[in-house]
C-alpha cells in the first residue's frame, strides 16, 4: 500500500462548552487543521492538530509538505528532485 495523496484544511469551530453549557469565551473559535491521507488501495486515514493560534496556517503547510512529492498539490510536485523523493519521511504529528 502506498500513499497516493493528502488533503488538509483549516476549520474554525465555535468555542462552545457542551458538557455544562459553561463556555468561558462563547464568541471565540478554535482553529483545527484536518488531514486525510489517501492510499492507492482506497483506504483513507485521518489526523488532526489543533489550537495552534497564529501558527495554524504554518501548521497546515507543514502537513501539506508531509505528502510524498508526487502527491503534493500544486507546482511543488513537478519541481521536486528524485533524491528528495527517495528520502521522504513523514515527520508531522497529524500523520504519525
Amino acid at each position, binding site marked *: 500500500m502506498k500513499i497516493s495523496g493528502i488533503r488538509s484544511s483549516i476549520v474554525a*469551530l465555535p468555542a462552545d462548552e457542551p*458538557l455544562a453549557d*459553561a463556555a468561558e469565551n462563547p464568541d471565540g473559535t478554535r482553529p483545527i487543521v484536518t*488531514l486525510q491521507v489517501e492510499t492507492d488501495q482506497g483506504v483513507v486515514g485521518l489526523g488532526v492538530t489543533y489550537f495552534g493560534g497564529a501558527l495554524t496556517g504554518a501548521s497546515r503547510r507543514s502537513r501539506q509538505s508531509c505528502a510524498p512529492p508526487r502527491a503534493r498539490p500544486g507546482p511543488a510536485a513537478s519541481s521536486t528532485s528524485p533524491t528528495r523523493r527517495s528520502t521522504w519521511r513523514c515527520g508531522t504529528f*497529524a500523520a504519525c
Partner: protein
Amino acid sequence: MALWDIRGVLNLPLWKLLGGARERVPTYASGALMRGLSLQRVVAAAARLKERGFREMKTQLALPGDTTPAKEVERMLRVREAIGPDIKLMCDINQRWRVEQAIDIGRRVEDAGVGLFWLEDVTTADDFAGLARVTAALSTPVAGGEYVCGIVPFRHMVERHSVDIVMIDLVRVGGITQWLKVAGMAEAFNLPVVSHRIPEVHVHLIGAVPNGLTVEYMPWLMRLFEEVPRPQSGELLMPTTPGLSLKFDQATLDRYRAA
C-alpha cells in the same frame, strides 16, 4: 495519527491493534469548570456535570485577578460541596504557581479536606526539580506532562519523580507512536498515564495500555466527526469500528472551513 488510522485496514479498532482488552474506560469532564467563571457559575456547572452522570471532573485554581490562598481554598470547598464526597475531583493550575505557592496552597486544600484525585501542572512544566519538590511535599497526587513536546522531557520527569501521574498530549508528544513510548516509559516507573484533549482518539490509547487511568473528556473537536464516543455513567465504551473509528463530518468541514 492518520497512518495508524490506515492500519484499520486490518479491520480492527486501534485499541485492539495495540493489544488492548478492556471494554470501557473511565472518563472525566473537562473544560467546563474553568477559572474564568464566577464562583456561582462554576458551582452550578459542577452540579450539572454530576447530574449528567460524570463521576470524575476537573476544575481550575490560580484564579484571575485579586486572589488569595483563602479564596482558592474556598472555591474548591464550594465545588466539593456541590458534587458531594464520592465524585473524583481534579484541579488544574496550568503552570501558574511558583513552587512555594503550590506547596502552600496545595497543603491548605488538603487540610480543608477537599480530597483531590490529582493536582495538575502546579508550576512551570519543565522545572522538573521544582515539580519534584511539590510532589514530595503533598500527599495529593501531582499530574503533569501536557505542556512538554516530544518524548525526552518525559524521561527527565519520571527520573526525577516530578509527577505521580503522567499526562500525555497526543499532538505535542508527536503522535500515536510517541504517545505509546511515553506510556511504556511511565509503566516502567510504575506510574499511571492520563490523556490530554481529543478523547475521540485517546479512548483507544488509554484503553490499550495497562497503566491507562482515565480519559479527559473535553469534546471541543466533537462536531468534526460523524460519530464520537459519548460518556455513559462516567465511562466510555471502547469503539468497535476499524482504525480510529472516526470519520470527518463533511458538513462541519464545509460550514466552518477557514482555509
